[in-house]
C-alpha cells in the first residue's frame, strides 16, 4: 500500500539517485559484481548505468519490492545477458548473490552522507535496500530462466541427435539406437523410423541396438511394438547388434521377440535385408 509518506520518500530517493548518479555508477563499476560480468571497464559503466536507471524507475513507480515492476522488466533482457555470461563462467552461485548485495554498500553510504531530512533517513535507506534485494531476486530469476531454456534446447538437441535414420540401400533403412532408452526417446525413435519408412518406401528397417547398454522388458516391449507397427505399414523390422551379454539378459528375463528377425551384427542384418529384397552380393575375382 502506498501512503503519502512512502511517496515522499520515493521522490526524495529518486532525487538522490539522480544527483548521485555519476558517483554511484563509478563505484558500482568497480564492484566485484560488475567486474565479474563485464568484459571491460567501459561495459561495466554502461551496465551499471542501465541497472541504476531501471532501479530508479521502479523506485519512482513505488513498486520497487515487486520483481514484476516495470523498471525491472526493462532490465530483464540485460540481466538475462549478464546471467548468461555468468553461466559461461561458473553459474549463478551464492557468491554472485552476495556480490549483488554488495551494491547496497555504496548506495547506503552515499545516502547517509547526503544528509537528508532526519525523518526520511531510515525509510529511504530501507527503500534503497529493498530495491537492491529485488534486483538480486530478478537476477536469480533471469539466471534460472536462462538455465531452464538451455536445458530445454539441449534436451531437444539430444532427442534429435539420438535418432538418425540412415538409408543403407534402396528400400533398406537403419536406425542405430544409442544410450539408455526412456519412453520419450524410444517414442521419438519409433515415430521418425516409421515416418522414414513411408518417405523412402523402405521394405526393411534395421533396429540396431549395439549402442544400448542394457535391454530390459520395457526396451524389448518397445522394440516389439516398433516392429509390429512397421509390419502394419507393410515393412519388415530386423533387430541387430544383440551382444551375447544382452542375449543372455534377455533369456534370463524371459523376453521373447516372437517372429521378429534378429541378427548379431549390423552387417548380418544388412545381408538379411538385401536377401529379402532379392539382391545378392558377389565377389569379383581380381578385385582388391
Amino acid at each position, binding site marked *: 500500500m502506498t501512503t503519502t509518506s512512502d511517496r515522499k520518500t520515493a521522490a526524495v530517493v529518486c532525487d538522490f539517485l539522480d544527483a548521485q548518479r555519476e558517483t554511484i555508477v563509478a563505484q558500482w563499476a568497480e564492484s566485484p559484481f560488475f567486474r565479474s560480468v563485464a568484459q571491460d571497464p567501459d561495459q561495466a559503466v554502461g551496465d551499471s548505468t542501465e541497472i541504476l536507471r531501471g532501479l530508479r524507475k521502479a523506485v519512482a513507480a513505488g513498486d520497487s519490492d515487486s520483481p514484476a515492476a516495470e523498471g525491472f522488466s526493462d532490465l530483464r533482457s540485460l540481466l538475462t545477458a549478464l546471467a548468461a555470461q555468468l553461466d559461461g563462467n561458473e553459474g549463478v552461485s551464492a557468491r554472485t548473490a552476495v556480490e549483488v548485495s554488495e551494491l547496497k554498500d555504496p548506495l547506503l553510504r552515499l545516502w547517509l552522507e547526503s544528509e537528508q531530512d532526519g525523518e526520511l533517513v531510515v525509510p529511504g535507506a530501507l527503500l534503497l535496500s529493498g530495491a537492491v534485494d529485488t534486483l538480486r531476486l530478478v537476477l536469480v530469476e533471469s539466471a534460472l530462466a536462462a538455465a531452464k531454456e538451455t536445458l530445454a534446447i539441449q534436451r531437444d538437441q539430444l532427442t534429435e541427435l539420438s535418432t538418425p535414420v540412415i538409408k543403407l540401400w534402396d528400400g533398406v533403412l537403419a536406425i542405430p539406437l544409442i544410450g539408455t532408452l526412456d519412453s520419450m526417446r524410444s517414442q521419438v525413435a*519409433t515415430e521418425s523410423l516409421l*515416418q522414414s519408412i513411408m518417405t523412402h518406401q523402405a521394405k526393411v528397417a534395421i533396429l540396431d541396438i549395439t549402442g544400448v547398454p542394457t535391454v530390459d522388458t520395457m526396451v524389448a516391449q518397445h522394440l516389439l511394438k516398433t516392429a509390429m507397427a512397421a509390419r502394419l505399414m507393410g515393412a519388415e523390422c530386423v533387430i541387430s547388434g544383440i551382444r551375447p551379454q544382452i542375449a543372455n539378459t534377455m533369456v534370463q528375463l524371459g523376453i521373447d521377440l516372437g517372429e521378429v528377425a534378429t541378427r548379431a551384427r549390423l552387417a548380418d542384418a544388412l545381408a538379411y535385408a538385401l536377401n529379402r529384397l532379392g539382391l545378392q552380393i558377389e565377389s569379383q575375382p581380381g578385385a582388391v
Partner: protein
Amino acid sequence: MPSVPIVNLNGVLLVTIQEELLDQSVSEFESELTEKVVDTRARGVLIDVSVLDIIDSFLARTLHDIAAITSLMAARTVVVGMRPAVAITLVELGLTLPGLLTALSVEEGLALLAPPPGPARTALR
C-alpha cells in the same frame, strides 16, 4: 451414406477408403466387398487406407475379418499404405492384426498379388 468404390483391376479388387466410415458403413462395405469377390472370382483384394488418419478398433477388426473371409474364397487381401501414426495407435491398442498381409504402396500390393505370388511378402503372424 458414403459408399466405398470397388475397382476390378484384372482379377484384383482395388478398394480405396476415402474418408472415415461409420460402423454401419463399414459393415455394408464388408458384405459388398465379399459378394463382389465371389461375383468377379477375384484372386486378390487391395484395400488402400493411406488417406485415413484414424482407424478405429472396429474397422481394424473388419479388415482382419475381410482377410479371413476372402482367404476362404481363395482371394488374398492386402492392406496398403497405413500411416505411421495409425500403425502405432493400433499396436498400442494391442491390434497387431496377425495374418493380415500389408504393403507400403498400391504398386507393391499389386506385385504381392501378381499371378505367381512373388517371394517378397510381408505376412503378419
